[in-house]
């Protein structure tokens, strides 16, 4: 069972009010980050449907991060509460199957600052590197 080292692919869903600002700040500070992630911007974390997270894993992402505003600070009337609840439930399912809930990173209110965002990407990258390969779950894998 090989590890994910060298194969880390992170899909980041981030709301424009939180993670995106952190991302911007990280850039301004020229914090060097692994180029292993891709960003999909959403207006609200409420938009991130669990099926999209699953689809990302099925399409070869080794980890998915969902970054939103802190729990009391949603710009959309607390739309991030149910989002958080359902994504936590998805983590449970991923844990059940052994894929690992850790592959889904939830950051609600912890990626707003540049250093937080950067630390999150770096640490998540490192964590995924150490996880067992998911190849057996992917169509081409055996």
């Amino acid at each position: 069972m090989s590890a994910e080292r060298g194969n880390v692919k992170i899909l980041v869903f981030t709301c424009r009010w939180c993670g995106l600002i952190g991302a911007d700040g990280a850039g301004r500070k020229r914090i060097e980050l692994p180029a292993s992630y891709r960003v999909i911007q959403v207006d609200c974390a409420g938009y991130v449907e669990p099926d999209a997270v699953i689809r990302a894993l099925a399409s070869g992402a080794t980890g998915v991060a969902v970054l939103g505003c802190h729990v009391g600070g949603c710009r959309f009337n607390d739309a991030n509460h149910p989002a958080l609840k359902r994504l936590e439930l998805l983590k449970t399912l991923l844990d059940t199957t052994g894929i690992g809930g850790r592959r889904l990173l939830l950051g609600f209110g912890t990626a707003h600052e540049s250093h937080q965002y950067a630390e999150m990407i770096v640490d998540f990258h490192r964590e995924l590197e150490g996880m067992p390969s998911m190849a057996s779950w992917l169509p081409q894998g055996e």
Partner: protein
Amino acid sequence: MLDQVKQKAKEILEKKEADGVLGLRKGLFDVIHPHVFTVPSELDALVLEPKWLFAKMARAILREKPQAWRLAVIVRGCDERAIVELVKRNQIDRERLLTLGYACDMDQAKACLCSRPFPQKLDAGAAVEGVDPLADERVKAYLEGDAGKRMEMWAAQLKRCIKCYGCRNSCPICVCVPCKLEDDVWVERGVIPAEMISFQIIRAFHLSDTCVACGACQEACPVGIPLMTLQLSMREALKKDYNYEAGLDANRKSPVLFDFAKEPRPGQAVPDWVDSMGKKP
């Protein structure tokens, strides 16, 4: 118990509480099949075995019939819960349906790993205590222990899927047309075995807060994948966090659909922030 059920069913028809009773009939050549009994005398041919879930069928029948037509359904615990979920999801009109509930025996409960082998509205038979599926050794093997090993175990299981859609079709809650499992965006079409993550996990997640642990998916699966097991930990999490169980109360929707003010986690404060890697803001 069968006589008791027959008696009650007859009463329902005689008193015109419903226009039809949905149950199993032993018909020609002793073939057992679902049937809508409309005259009391027919009910002599009623049987209760094997386990059969009528929830979805009841939905279809009621949609066909005129608005004033009412149906009584002979249900076990799981079937009643499925009906509750369908009522909650506006699939069945509560006013037009009544249930005639009977309890399963211990053997059935064990076979189903059922924790509630009786309907809430019990009309016949005596309720036996259920079994805790999470205490079952076979279940434990799939839910506990080394994650890496489990990932391989589940992969080996799910890979056997021949994409017959039996799980979805038999699930009393899966009623969507179209269904995401038939859409190329979510699940690659024409590929067997199915993409395990997008097919199985998407389906499992769609049932996360509605699965009533009836086991129909698992029983329908021709290759014997332990599909219900996939749902158990999510059901458990909802029970633990929100004291919520699907299929019990048609007036309580899934807590996952509401904010923390409307559906708090009893005993837990609403976090100011959440970070699954344990970082602080």
